C-alpha cells in the first residue's frame, strides 16, 4: 500500500509544534517513529500531517536536579542509558564509596534513585531500537507490553504534557488510561518524564539538597530496584514484566513499589503485594518464604476485565506466573540494596532461576549491557 500522503513539518520549537498540531488537520507527532511508521505502512494511521519533534533540543536531555531527574521526552533510550549511568562525581564523594562490595558504590544518581527504570530502558528492543526510540514516545504509546510504563510507575514518575493552555504534570498512573491510550491529547505534546529522587519513604519526595551538602541527591534510605521480564517470543515485548523498588530501613522493607506490564491493558501497580512486602525483615532467616508469601496475591491486583493474553501466552497463564516474576524482581531489588547485599543468613536472590532465559540471549536483567 502507499502510505497515505501527508505534509511533513520539522518543528523548530515545542510551541511551533503545538501550533502545527492545532492548525493542521489530522496532524500527528513523529519522534522515534517506532509506533507511527509501522502504522503508516499497514494503513492503520492516515495522518494529514506529521510534525517531527525528534530533534528539538528542548525535548532532549537528562537533567539531574536536586529533587528529581527530568528526562526530555525525545531523549533516546541510548542517551538515557549513557547519561543516566554516568557516575559523575558521585564516585569520589559518595559516603558509601569506601566499602568494598557496596552495591551503591559508583552508582549514578539515577541508578541510585530509579534503578528499575534504567534496567527497563536497557531491556527495550535491541541496540538499534534503543538508538532511535524515545522515552516520551514509549510512555505516550502506552503499549501494554512495553517495558517502561511499569518501571515509571515504581519510580513514582510523572509525565509533563504541554498544550496550548500551558504545561501540566500527570502521574504515570493517571497518564496510562488504557491499551495504547494515554492522557495526552491530540493537540498536546509530552515534553518530559520527571523521576523524583527518593527521600524517605513517607511518600514525599524532594528532600533538602543542602542537607546532603551537594546536589548529588543520594537517597536518604537504602534504596534498591529491579526490572525482570519474560520476553515475548514473537513480539520481543514483555510477556510479563515486573518492576520493583524497595526502601530498606534497618533491615526491614520500609516501602515497596511493585508494578507489572504485559498482564493487563495498562501497566499497573500491584498494591496488595506492596502492602504485604512492607515490614519484611530481609536480614533474618526465612526471608525467602516471607517474600514468597507476600507475592502470592499478585493476580488479585490485576482486574479480570483488563487481563491480556494472546495465542502464545493466555491471560490466565500470564497472571498465574505473575507471582513468580514478582518474586524474582523483589529478590533482585532487595539484593541490590545495601542490606540485601550483605549476604545475610538467607540471601533472597540465590536460588531464583534466571528469568528470560530464551529470547534475545538476555538472561541477566539485573546488570550490565545485555549480551
Amino acid at each position, binding site marked *: *500500500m*502507499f502510505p497515505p500522503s501527508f505534509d511533513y513539518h520539522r518543528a523548530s520549537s515545542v510551541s511551533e509544534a503545538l501550533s502545527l498540531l492545532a492548525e493542521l488537520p489530522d496532524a500527528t507527532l513523529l519522534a522515534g517513529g517506532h509506533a507511527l511508521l509501522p502504522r503508516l505502512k499497514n*494503513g492503520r494511521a492516515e495522518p494529514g500531517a506529521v510534525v517531527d519533534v525528534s530533534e528539538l533540543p528542548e525535548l532532549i536531555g537528562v537533567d539531574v536536579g536536586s529533587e528529581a531527574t527530568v528526562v526530555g521526552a525525545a531523549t533516546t533510550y541510548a542517551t538515557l542509558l549513557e547519561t543516566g549511568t554516568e557516575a559523575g562525581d558521585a564516585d569520589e564523594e559518595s559516603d558509601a564509596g569506601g566499602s568494598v562490595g557496596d552495591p551503591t558504590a559508583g552508582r549514578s544518581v539515577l541508578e541510585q534513585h530509579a534503578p528499575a527504570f534504567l534496567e527497563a530502558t536497557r531491556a527495550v528492543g535491541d541496540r538499534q531500537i534503543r538508538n532511535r526510540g524515545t522515552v516520551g514516545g514509549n510512555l505516550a504509546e502506552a503499549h501494554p507490553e512495553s517495558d517502561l510504563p511499569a518501571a515509571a510507575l515504581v519510580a513514582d514518575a510523572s509525565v509533563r504534557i504541554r498544550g496550548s493552555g500551558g504545561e501540566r504534570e500527570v502521574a504515570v498512573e493517571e497518564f496510562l488510561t488504557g491499551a495504547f491510550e494515554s492522557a495526552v491529547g491530540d493537540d498536546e505534546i509530552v515534553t518530559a518524564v520527571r523521576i523524583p529522587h527518593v527521600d524517605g519513604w513517607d511518600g514525599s519526595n524532594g528532600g533538602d539538597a543542602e542537607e546532603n551538602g551537594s546536589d548529588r541527591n543520594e537517597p536518604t534510605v537504602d534504596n534498591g530496584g529491579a526490572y525482570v521480564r*519474560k520476553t515475548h*517470543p*514473537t*513480539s520481543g515485548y514483555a*510477556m510479563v514484566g515486573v518492576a520493583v523498588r524497595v526502601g530498606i530501613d534497618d533491615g526491614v522493607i520500609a516501602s515497596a513499589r511493585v508494578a507489572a506490564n504485559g498482564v493487563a491493558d495498562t501497566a499497573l501497580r500491584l498494591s496488595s503485594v506492596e502492602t504485604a512486602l512492607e515490614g519484611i525483615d530481609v536480614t533474618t532467616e526465612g526471608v525467602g518464604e516471607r517474600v514468597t508469601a507476600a507475592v502470592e496475591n499478585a493476580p488479585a491486583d490485576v482486574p479480570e476485565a483488563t487481563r491480556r493474553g*494472546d*495465542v*502464545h*501466552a*493466555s491471560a490466565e*497463564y500470564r497472571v*498465574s*506466573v505473575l507471582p*513468580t*516474576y514478582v518474586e524474582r524482581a523483589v529478590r533482585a531489588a532487595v539484593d541490590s540494596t545495601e542490606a540485601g547485599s550483605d549476604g545475610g543468613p538467607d540471601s533472597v536472590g540465590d*536460588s*531464583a*532461576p*534466571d528469568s528470560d*532465559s*530464551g*529470547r*534475545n*540471549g538476555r538472561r541477566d536483567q539485573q546488570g550490565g549491557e545485555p549480551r
Partner: protein
Amino acid sequence: MSDAESADAGAADPSEHDQEAVDEDADTDAYTGSGEKRREDAALLSGRAEYTDDREPPGTVHLAFVRSEHGHADLEEIDTSAAEAMDDVLGAYTWADVEASPSPGRLQPPGLDRDVPAHPVLATDRVRYHGQPVAVVVAEDRYRARDAAAAVDVEYDPLEAVVDPETAATDSEAPRLFEAAPDNIATTAELGDRDATEEAFAAADRTVSIDLENNRLISSALEPRAAIGEFDPDEGFTVTVTSQSPHGHRRKLAHTLGVREGEVRVVSPRVGGGFGHKGHHHPGEAMAAWCARELEVPVKWTATRSGNYLEGAHGRDHRTTAELAIDDDGTIRGLRAETYASVGGYGLGSGARMPVRYGRLLSSQYAIDAIHCETRAVFTTTAPIHSYRGAGRPEAIYVTERLIDVAADELGLDPVELRRRNLISPEAFPYETPVGATYDSGDYEPAMDKALEAIGYDERTDATGADDGRLRGVGIANYVESTGGGFESGLVRVLPDGDVAVYAGTHSHGQGHETTYAQLVADALERPIDRIQVSEGDTAAIPTGTGTFGSRSTIVGGNAVVESAEKVLAKARRIAATELGVDSAQIGYEDGTFAVSGANDSVSAEAVSGADETVSFEDIADTAYGWGLPDDLEPGLESTTFYDLDGAAYTFGTHACVVAVDPDTGDVELERYFAVDDCGERVNPLIVEGQVHGGVAQGIGQARYEQVAYDDDGTLLTETMDSYGVPRAADLPSIETDSTVTPSPLNELGVKGIGEAGTIAAPPAVVNAVCDALDITHVDMPLTEEHVWRAISDQNEE
C-alpha cells in the same frame, strides 16, 4: 513427478551397483569431501544476486490479490468498479473473467479419493479458507495495486468454519466443505497389515498409547513467493517464478493456463528459501501469466509476508493416536497409528497426498514385525497443506520416537536401552519395513553411541541438575530420512576453450548446488574448479528435470552430472587417442592432460612438453569443435544424463539434547543440542553441516515456538511475524554436530540426502527431553512456556 512423491518408491537390489566409485575420493587433492566454501555466497551476501522481484522487464505492471476475509463463506457479489476507476489501475478480474478465457484456471488436480474440484486460481462461488484469492487487481505499481485491491467490494455470506481435522471428520455437525466429500474426508490410506498387527498386539505383554498433535506450521522463507508473467503471441509465456522445480512449474502452469508445455518457458533466478512451499503451484503465478496475456504487458506479483502466511501453503497438522505393542523384555512387537491429517480448504497436488505416504517411516530405526497405519486426509476451512521441510517424515518419526519414550517409562527401562534392543542390525540391510519402505543401508548403533557420549548421557544428572531450581532432562531421537528418488537431468558441456558448463534440472534455493556440483564435476574431469560453471533454473536451456525437494539433489542431480562428466571424458579420450595415434585404451588422463600410457608412468611437466605424446584437455575441447575431427566422431563435447534412482537412500542419525525447565514458569532452555547424522559420503561437509544447522533450527522452531492458530471462525490469528514465532538466532542453542559415514549402495557416489534430517529429529529430541525433565508422558508442541506450565500444573494435580 511431484514433490516428495519419490521418497519411498520400490526396492532396489544394492548388489547391482558398483561401489568402487565410493572409494575414489581417497585422493587428498579431491574437491569432493572437502569443505569448499560456497561459491554462491559472495553474490548472495553482498546483495548482487538477482531474485525474481529484482527483475523488472520494461513495462512491468503489478498484481495484487483481494483475499477472502472469511474462513468459509459463499460469495454473494464482487464489485470491482471502484478499483477499476482508480488512476493507474489497468484491470480487475474475478473468476467470471477466468471462466470466460481459454484457461481452465484450476491448479493441478489433487489426486484424491473424493472427486472434488481442484483449487481455482480465483474463488468461484465459495471461499474455503481465510486468505483465499477472490480477485486480482493490476496497476502501474505494486502499491497502487494493493490500494486498489482494498477498494474491491466483496459481499460474503459467512458459513460455519471447522479448523480441526479430527472434528471435521468425526463430528456429524461439522460443516461440509464439498458435496462430494460428505464427511470432509478427502482420502483415506492404509499402510501395513492390519491383521498381522492385531495379532502382534494380542501376543505382546503390554500396550502403550499416546495421543499427539503435530502442529501446523508456516514456511517462513526469507523471500516470499513471486512471479513475473510475460506473453508473446508467437512465443507463448515466459514465467519468472520462485520455484524449487522449474520443469514442474512448466507442466503445472501449462495445465492451469490451458496451453502446451512447449508454450511455457519457466525461469527461476535465485530463490531465497523454499522448504517445500515453492514446489507447489500457486494462483499468483498463474494469474501473473494470465493477466500478462490479457493486458499484453509483463505482470509481476510479489506476495506480501502476510499473503504468504495466509495461503503459503502450510505444513504438518496431524492428530494421531498411536500404540506400541511391547514385551516386558523391551522387544517391540507392533505399532499402529491412526491419523487425521488436514488437507486444508483444497487439495494441493502432492501436498494433499502426503498423509497417504507419511506412515512409511513409522518403523524409524527399529525392527518391528507388524505396523499398521490408517490415515484420513481431511478438508478443513484452513489454508491448504503442502510439503514443509520433511513432508511427512517428521510426522512419522515424531510418533515413533515419542511412543518409545512412553514405552520405556511404562517398562521402567532406560529409553536408550529400549531403542538399542530394537535397532535394525547392520547385517539386515537392505531392510524392508512392514510399511513399504526399503532401507538401503545403515549402521545405527555407532551414530547413537556417538551422540550419547558427546552429550554425556551415562553421566547425566537426574531431574534436578545444577542448583538453580530448574529441572534437567535429556532427550534422544533416532531417525531415518528417505532421500532422493526419481530421475534428474544433468548436462555437462565442455566449451571450445575447455571451460565446463554444467546444467541440472534441480534448483538450488539455499542448498549450494553451484558448489557441490562444481566439486563433483571438477573431480570427475580432473579440472580446476574455477573452470566449472553451474546453471539451473531455465526450462529453455536445461534438459527436463525434476527439481529440488525431498533431499534429493546431490543424490540424483549429483550422480547425473558426474555420469555426464564421465561420458564427456570418455569421448575426450577417444579424440585424444586419434590425435596421438593410439587406441583409446592406451590413453591415460591426469590433471587435464591426456598421455599415451606406458610412455610415462605419470604425467610430469617434462612429459607435457613432449608434444607428440600428450595433449591437453583444452586442445581436445578445441579439436572437438574444430575441423580436424575424424569421420567416426561427432563434433561437440557434451553429454546429458537422466539419472534414475530406483528406491530411496535412507539417511539416519541420532540427535540428543539437554534441557532445563523452570518449574514455576514453564520456561525451557536448550542447554545442549548434539546431532550425529549419517548421510553416506559427504561431498561438501561444510554444506552438510549447514543443512543440519538449518534443519535443527526449524525443528526447534516447531518444537518450541511455531504454531499456526485459527479462531473458530477460521480467521488466521498468526498472520504476521509479530504473532507467528519463528525462532531467532538468540533463541537457539549452539548446535554441535558429528557424523558417521555409511555409504548408500544405491548410487555411484554413495551419497544420501541431508536436507530434512534436522526437522525430523529435533522435535522428538526436544519433546523427549522436556518430558524427561518433568517426568511426564507427553506434552504437545509447541513447548511454549504456557504449554509446559500447564503440563506441570496437570501433573501437580494428579
